[in-house]
């Protein structure tokens, strides 16, 4: 950091402390709203949802055999296999958004082509397991499933559309193979790994059930013991360490941003007037869905922070349709990601992709608001 940058930062901090109306009611209100939302998340969602979700994501990162899935996205794969695989594989291939771009570029330039690559790019961040689990914990299962299904359907449609628009481009790329069989094997049966995965998922689900707390505690402790049993007696030490490292990595990457996001979401509720939200996105019209879609496309949401922000916008009166629309574009598009898209896809494909996603999200959100 240069000296003059330090000076500017210090000077502006001073100016804020000096001039800002720190004891004005609105400032105090927004700070306390931010803190109380943080309190709510810490109480309700961190231990019971996020921590198990991070462990589950760590399990996926270490134990799911990704080679086999990747081969299904290669250049010779039939289209009717590549599209569905691309649209759901984001959930297991890309536990964290930082791995999306290499996979996308690979599928685009060496693999199944622009269509499946686009499908993957869109669903990758939207259907990652921690995001779905947190959505269901905060907003309910209907929203989590709506988000999941809409993302998968839109991704296939957008992929097909892009492939139709840019068919010429595709043929040039259809050569080369993915590196395969170099991922190293995990020497456990599929059954063991599946049991390990499902047990952790069950812990998370049971946390959410409304049953007698004593019974709940007994079930959860039993399942934690079972998970530990697999860890201690079935798995080798190196894989366990890797599992912990992946989990910890993800936690480090996501949790600080989430806390900031939750605080900001709390402030939003205190600062934005309710009438504005109701007027813009209160009804489930095409226009309000379009507003939500545009806002989501340009706004950057760090992983998972879309959940508290949409939660608070909804408590200010945002409709269910626009909320789903915001989920769809908020994750997939942002100003920074648009810049990357232009670089990777080119001047013609990138705007087409962005527009396709925005329009399809409007339709999906509108349908969700009308039907459910």
């Amino acid at each position, binding site marked *: 950091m240069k000296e003059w940058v330090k000076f500017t930062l210090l000077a502006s901090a001073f100016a804020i402390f000096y001039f800002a109306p720190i004891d004005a009611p609105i400032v105090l209100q927004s700070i306390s709203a931010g803190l109380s939302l943080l309190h709510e998340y810490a109480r309700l969602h961190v231990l019971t949802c996020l921590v198990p979700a991070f462990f589950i994501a760590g399990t996926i990162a270490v134990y799911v055999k990704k080679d086999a899935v990747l081969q299904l996205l290669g250049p010779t794969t039939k289209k009717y296999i590549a599209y569905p695989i691309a649209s759901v594989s984001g959930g297991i291939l890309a536990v964290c958004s930082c791995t999306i771009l*290499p996979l996308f*570029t*690979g599928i685009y330039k*060496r693999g199944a082509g622009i269509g499946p690559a686009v499908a993957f790019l869109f669903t990758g961040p939207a259907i990652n397991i921690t995001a779905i689990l947190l959505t269901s914990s905060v907003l309910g299962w209907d929203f989590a499933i709506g988000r999941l299904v809409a993302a998968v359907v839109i991704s296939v449609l957008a992929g097909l559309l892009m492939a139709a628009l840019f068919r010429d481009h595709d043929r040039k790329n259809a050569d080369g193979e993915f*590196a395969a069989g*170099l*991922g*190293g094997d995990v020497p456990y049966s599929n059954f063991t790994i599946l049991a390990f995965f499902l047990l952790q998922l069950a812990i998370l689900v049971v946390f959410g059930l409304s049953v007698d707390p004593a019974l709940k505690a007994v079930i959860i402790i039993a399942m934690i013991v079972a998970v530990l049993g697999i860890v201690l007696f079935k798995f080798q030490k190196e894989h366990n360490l890797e599992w912990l490292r992946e989990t910890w990595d993800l936690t480090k990457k996501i949790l600080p941003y989430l806390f900031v996001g939750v605080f900001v979401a709390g402030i939003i509720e205190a600062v934005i007037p309710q009438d504005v939200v109701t007027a813009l996105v209160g009804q489930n019209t095409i226009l309000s869905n379009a507003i939500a879609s545009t806002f989501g496309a340009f706004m950057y949401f760090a992983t998972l922070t879309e959940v508290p922000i949409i939660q608070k916008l909804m408590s200010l009166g945002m409709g269910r349709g626009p909320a789903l629309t915001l989920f769809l574009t908020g994750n997939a598009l942002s100003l920074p990601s648009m810049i990357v898209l232009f670089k990777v896809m080119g001047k013609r494909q990138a705007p087409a992709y962005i527009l396709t996603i925005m329009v399809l999200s409007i339709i999906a959100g509108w349908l969700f608001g009308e039907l459910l």
Partner: protein
Amino acid sequence: MATVKILGSGCSKCKVLEQRLLSLKATHNLIFELVKVTDIDDIIPYGVMMTPGLVINGELKSVGVVPKDALLLEWLGIESR
């Protein structure tokens, strides 16, 4: 002299692999040149999409994992002598 390339745009496993290689280099007095390939356009031609990729003397050895020390030594020991 062997050339060892780590393909990866800065994921945590890439850093672990780098540290592993450097510590092996120190403890076993290996001689090789370590190159980090971080630009995605240079990584994709190897067919690598799960980082880190490990390339030793132009040959792709592993993808998406940090190989065990024994395996790394086998690859390096044979090829760096």
